[in-house]
């Protein structure tokens, strides 16, 4: 598994009264060559027209940045392809592309291309860094203004953050609370305060905080689409899920070693498995009778293990919820909710699956939902990878 995780998320508020946004954010991960590409595009105007322009731009920029084509040339292609606005007689859309590659822990770099969006910010810890941007004159036929593309090559370290936002953020509050709007400087200061307050703030929380603040400056009536995206290079949050007793009793000790050697959160799922772990670590297992629902047995507590649940029923319910992308807040307060919360809060999940057959589950009276452990883990992994972009791995014992 990777030792580095690129946490990318964005937050967005549409222009007040609009049901569709003129800012478009795209994200692709290519795990084969450790590449993450994210694009933010802002179309001319607002509403449907802006959305068409921005979607076109973002998708083209995104696709082209994966190709071998020179970026300057790509930018020209994009500008020439965009439809012309009826009112303003121009075709126009801004974009920022961040192409992040992370072959190793020491080598994380970003190719940043910016066209007319507010300048991106780079934070190392709480301090904001500045760098030189290479300017490229586009010289496009029929251009209505001087068109300049800026390119930068940035080296990133673990703990660095790149913040990219649309002009809805920098112009927030213009003519209302602030004469010239929030401006890049205002965003920089705000982001700095947020990071100082919570040095490990996630991309999700930071982008949300910036967007909400911008909307507040606009007195909750946003004048433009407000979009902010944050790229955060950090150590991955790992979780271990142990389910099922090992095939032979002799392997129990090995399971214990694996659990104690693991760095990160630990979940034990399965009654018998919990008993084995409790015996191995000589820790008391206590069932929490307050937290259960009619389809999910109660969870238990044990020192050194973050969550202890029942096995098959809980796991199949978790798999179903992750497959359907259900909101956590709509769930019952039971073991499944706790399990899903931990899953969503992890970047990498490792499963240790015990292969011992449970004699009690061979009973024909048992409901069909209790399937085969391996099948359910397979579903869980697929849902985590496809729906939540988590990395997963598994081993049998």
């Amino acid at each position: 598994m990777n030792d580095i995780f690129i946490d990318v998320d964005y937050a967005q508020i549409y222009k007040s009264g609009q049901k569709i946004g003129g800012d478009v954010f795209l994200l692709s991960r290519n795990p084969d060559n450790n590449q993450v590409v994210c694009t933010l595009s802002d179309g001319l105007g607002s509403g449907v027209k802006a959305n068409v322009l921005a979607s076109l731009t973002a998708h083209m920029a995104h696709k082209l940045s994966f190709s071998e084509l020179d970026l300057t040339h790509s930018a020209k292609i994009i500008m020439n392809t965009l439809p012309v606005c009826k009112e303003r007689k121009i075709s126009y859309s801004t974009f920022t592309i961040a192409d992040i590659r992370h072959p190793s822990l020491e080598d994380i770099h970003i190719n940043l291309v910016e066209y007319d969006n507010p300048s991106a910010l780079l934070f190392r810890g709480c301090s904001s860094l500045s760098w030189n941007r290479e300017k490229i004159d586009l010289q496009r036929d029929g251009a209505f203004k001087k068109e300049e593309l800026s390119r930068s090559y940035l080296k990133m370290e673990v703990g660095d953050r790149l913040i990219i936002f649309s002009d809805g953020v920098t112009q927030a509050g213009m003519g209302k609370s602030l004469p010239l709007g929030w401006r890049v400087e205002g965003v920089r200061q705000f982001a700095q305060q947020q990071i100082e307050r919570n040095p490990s703030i996630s991309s999700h929380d930071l982008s949300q905080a910036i967007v909400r603040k911008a909307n507040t400056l606009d007195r909750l009536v946003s004048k433009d689409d407000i979009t902010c995206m944050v790229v955060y290079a950090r150590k991955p949050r790992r979780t271990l899920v142990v389910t099922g007793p090992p095939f032979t009793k002799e392997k129990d000790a090995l399971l214990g070693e694996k659990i104690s050697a693991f760095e990160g959160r630990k979940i034990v799922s399965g009654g018998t498995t919990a008993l084995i772990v409790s015996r191995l670590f000589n820790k008391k297992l206590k069932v929490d009778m307050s937290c259960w629902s009619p389809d999910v047995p109660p969870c238990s507590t044990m020192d050194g293990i973050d969550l202890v649940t029942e096995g098959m029923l809980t796991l199949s319910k978790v798999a179903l919820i992750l497959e359907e992308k259900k909101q956590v807040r709509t769930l019952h307060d039971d073991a499944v909710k706790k399990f899903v919360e931990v899953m969503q809060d992890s970047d990498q999940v490792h499963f240790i699956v015990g292969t011992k057959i449970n004699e009690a589950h061979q009973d024909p009276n048992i409901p069909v939902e209790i399937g085969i452990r391996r099948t359910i883990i397979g579903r869980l992994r697929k849902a985590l990878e496809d729906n939540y972009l988590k990395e997963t791995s598994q081993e049998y014992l």
Partner: protein
Amino acid sequence: MGKREKVLVKICVGTACFVQGGADLLLYNDFLDPVVLANCEIEGSSCLGMCKMSSTKARPPFVQIGTEVYGDMTQERFCKLLAEAVNA
């Protein structure tokens, strides 16, 4: 009436027990006589291990009352056995 030790009760919440009636037993606060309830110390057990024993004829759900383990537990039987254990 002198002070007596509470009866220790363990309800199995393992998968096999939970799906075959164990979930109903967890509603003990609703169906048990409060006097009986006050004299019992009820807790869950992640698995009593009975479902895997071929020697026993009893079937899930299992409940341990004191030192004895009972199978085929229903709410009615649970009430009766607990009342007996408390009044013993």
